[in-house]
């Protein structure tokens, strides 16, 4: 069943590839959209058949591939990856819908979008670390071309910077994976096999390997100081690419940290956790501070992404059951909110020709401005700022609630960061949307429903999941408990005496029966 998620984009790309060269743009778009819709429906079918009460991989598939190097085609779906593949499928549709109907070189464009979808979904369902790496690297190719060909004026610079950063990211991740296989003596790259052996590694080795993953995935997420590629990439990327980049591609980094960093090296993880939490706090404050200073709307949202992705790291670093559920929730929340914000910024740019907050003004003006777009932007800003009733509140509240007992200082600093979200978004909204519509932009073309509807769908999801968050967390909760408890049990069996943390506390943090509040780790 999972292979269908891989096969569908491939089929779509083949169809696009064999179409006559001078076919109308709408036909390419229709094929890509149909493929994305089928993928989404298939994902929903998987979600319906998925048993959330059963931790561990479901719909597993395994085939030997290149046995000489230990690579196997292993797929599986659990509560951590399911929400992300749903988000990926949804945002692929949104990206296609928000693409200009007269996009240049449509065949290549839509092939790249489907290839991106393929790379991301493959990474989320891969159960072989090398297979994960291949998919992880695969998505770099389409993203590079999407920025380099359909990007803004400095697209070449931004695409090259993105390529260099993510290539370095890949090197670190590959080195960590190879090191893990080599040091554990594992016969292959299968995730479960590695997981059963990685805890045997000495703490120093775990920390070293984890540092590799941390830098590799940290570039992707990105954290300060590995973040500089992201604002450039967002500014130069077209709206659909920004939607995919912020909405789902950044989550590959946090997913990788959760799945492989925490999943393989729990001891090392807990050793580095205070540093990661501190890094998260720095990243959150740095991202928020930079966002305040920006004049380009897209850069504001981009730096906001850096700040909000830091909350995921904080949740992961705290390593409590609640905080990890929160981190997973924050990934979905940020995916929906940032995708919506980028969509809206894209509409503003398309209609006004500018994203400059010092140039734009009064866009909420009902008859000649962009009132619905402005209203949705306010809703997005409220969601991002953690206003109750929206998904951002649920995610951020859970992150802070789950992390505070473990890292109170870092959590408080991150809370300041979320407070600053309101500052930079309100500054932007006040400048761009309120006041008098200037004469130089009072002939704006109207916004079509096709341009509004993707953002409206995301806004509805933001509200619905804000009011009914259990629809989001029910998939993740059993898996998180299982992930931590299995790792805890394995660690306890193999190394009963020597560790730097209090096992009882860890158990308290990870047990499904544990209370929400815990004592701080020593």
């Amino acid at each position, binding site marked *: 069943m999972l292979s269908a998620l891989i096969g569908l984009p491939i089929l779509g790309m083949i169809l696009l590839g064999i179409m006559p060269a001078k076919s109308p743009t709408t036909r390419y778009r229709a094929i890509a959209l149909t493929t994305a819709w089928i993928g989404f429906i298939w994902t929903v079918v998987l979600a319906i058949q998925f048993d959330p009460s059963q931790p561990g991989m479901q719909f597993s598939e395994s085939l030997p591939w290149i046995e000489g190097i230990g690579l196997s085609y292993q797929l599986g779906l659990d509560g951590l990856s399911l929400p992300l593949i749903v988000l990926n499928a949804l945002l692929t549709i949104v990206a296609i819908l928000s693409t200009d109907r007269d996009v240049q070189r449509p065949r290549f464009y839509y092939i790249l979008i489907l290839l991106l979808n393929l790379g991301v979904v493959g990474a989320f369902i891969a159960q072989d670390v090398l297979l994960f790496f291949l998919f992880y690297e695969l998505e770099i190719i389409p993203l590079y071309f999407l920025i380099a060909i359909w990007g803004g004026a400095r697209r070449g610079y931004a695409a090259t910077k993105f390529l260099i950063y993510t290539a370095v990211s890949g090197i670190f991740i590959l080195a960590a994976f190879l090191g893990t296989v080599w040091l554990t003596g594992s016969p292959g790259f299968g995730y479960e096999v590695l997981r059963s052996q990685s805890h045997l590694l000495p703490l120093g080795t775990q920390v070293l390997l984890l540092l590799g993953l941390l830098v590799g995935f940290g570039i992707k997420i990105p954290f300060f100081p590995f973040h500089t590629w992201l604002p450039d990439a967002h500014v130069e990327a077209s709206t659909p690419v920004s939607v995919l980049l912020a909405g789902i591609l950044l989550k590959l980094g946090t997913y990788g940290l959760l799945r492989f960093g925490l999943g393989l090296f729990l001891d090392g993880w807990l050793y580095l956790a205070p540093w990661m939490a501190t890094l998260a706090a720095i990243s959150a404050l740095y991202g928020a501070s930079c966002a305040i200073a920006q004049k380009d709307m897209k850069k504001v949202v981009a730096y906001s992404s850096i700040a909000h992705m830091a909350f995921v790291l904080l949740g992961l670093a705290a390593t409590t059951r609640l905080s990890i559920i929160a981190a997973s929730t924050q990934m979905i929340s940020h995916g929906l909110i940032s995708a919506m914000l980028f969509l809206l910024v894209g509409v503003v740019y398309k209609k006004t020709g500018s994203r400059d907050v010092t140039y734009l003004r*009064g866009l909420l*003006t*009902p*008859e*000649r401005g962009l009132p619905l777009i402005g209203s949705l932007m306010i809703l997005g800003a409220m969601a991002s700022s953690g206003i109750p009733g929206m998904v951002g509140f649920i995610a951020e509240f859970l992150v802070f609630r789950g992390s505070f007992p473990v890292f109170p200082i870092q959590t408080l600093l991150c809370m300041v960061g979320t407070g600053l979200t309101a500052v930079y978004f309100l500054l932007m909204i006040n400048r761009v949307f309120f*006041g*008098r*519509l200037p*004469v130089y932009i*009072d*002939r704006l*073309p*109207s916004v079509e429903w096709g341009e509004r509807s993707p953002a409206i769908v995301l806004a509805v999801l933001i509200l619905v999941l804000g009011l009914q968050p259990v629809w989001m967390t029910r998939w993740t909760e059993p898996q998180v408990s299982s992930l931590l408890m299995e790792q805890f049990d394995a660690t306890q069996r193999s190394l009963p005496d020597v560790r730097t943390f209090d096992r009882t506390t860890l158990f308290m943090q990870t047990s499904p029966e544990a209370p929400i509040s815990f004592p701080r780790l020593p």
Partner: protein
Amino acid sequence: MSVEQLPPSNHTLAEYVHRLESGKALLSDSPEHVVEVVGILKSYGVVLDAYSNNLIYIAEHQFLRLFPFFKYFNGEVSLDKLLRHWAHNRINYEYAEYCMKAMLWHQGGGLADHVDDPTFRKRVEPLIQAKFKFNPLMQLLHKLFPEFLPEHMRVMCYYSGLGQFWRVMSDIFIDLSDRYDRGEIDSIPQVVQHIQDGLVAAASQPITYSVTLEGETYDVLPKDVGLTFLVDTAVPYVEAIFFRGTPFPGTVSYNAQAFQIPVYQRDFAYGALFADPLPIGGSGIPPTQLMQDMWHFLPDYLHKIYQSTTRGEDDIRVKICETFQKSMFCVTTAAIRGLAPFPMDTSELSEQKENRKYLETWMSRFVESRIREAQA
């Protein structure tokens, strides 16, 4: 022999001074402008007719009523009309009242002078006594606050005065539209001339106001006071509404946000000719309620033009406001020409100089207006 000629004006808006001197209008002449101006004045005429009827009804039937709940019903109170009123399926008579209050607020003209005159106070006293002769509470109120009820009657005078002014203007605009339909109007100067002729014809028309109570007629503004249409209602109206602005609900507009609203009333200069056309939903500046009312009575040819430009129906009130401003520059042209010290086509240099001075004084008031935007 050389003939002395008037040198070109050095005024900031010299272009418009020269236009008026050469017999043209403040609004440039083009077929598009003719269609727009005549069309909008047609709908304005229909709306003014309704406003006028209601203002006169209120003046004649709702005087000295402290709670005139059904003042917008013109005496036809029914459940069906009430429901339509609540559903806002009606003319925005509030706008007419705001214009009346703006005139009252900004004063000017003989009407303002007369209602502040002690003779007015004496003339309304019998009416007040007759109205409340069986109402001791109101009599007590009148004794305690002797200016309250006369002030109410002053307001009623403005209801009546504006109602009579708009009655004339409505007829002028409807006639203009009829002439256009008959093919008699095809340029902006002709539009201006039509309005000017109408204003001149009605210039000396008396402005009077009387009410009937229990069979007895009370002359509140009798004919012998000498109030006339042009000087005592038209000019104060143009001053208050076109130039000064409405200091009532709706004042916090985009003009206000652009810091165009002065602190003091005497400095107000953001009337209809200055208004940002983006609606604010109120009756102030720009008058969204008027735009809404005119929308219902747009001639088909103008409606089709609006539907085919910018955002179609979505920004129609903005377009109505922009067109309305164009038409108001035509009305203002007619007023300026009508009040000029000498005919614009005079060949006497001294008269030309007087006219030049007169026009430049007017143009100084237009510097911040939307006169340039209106030419588009």
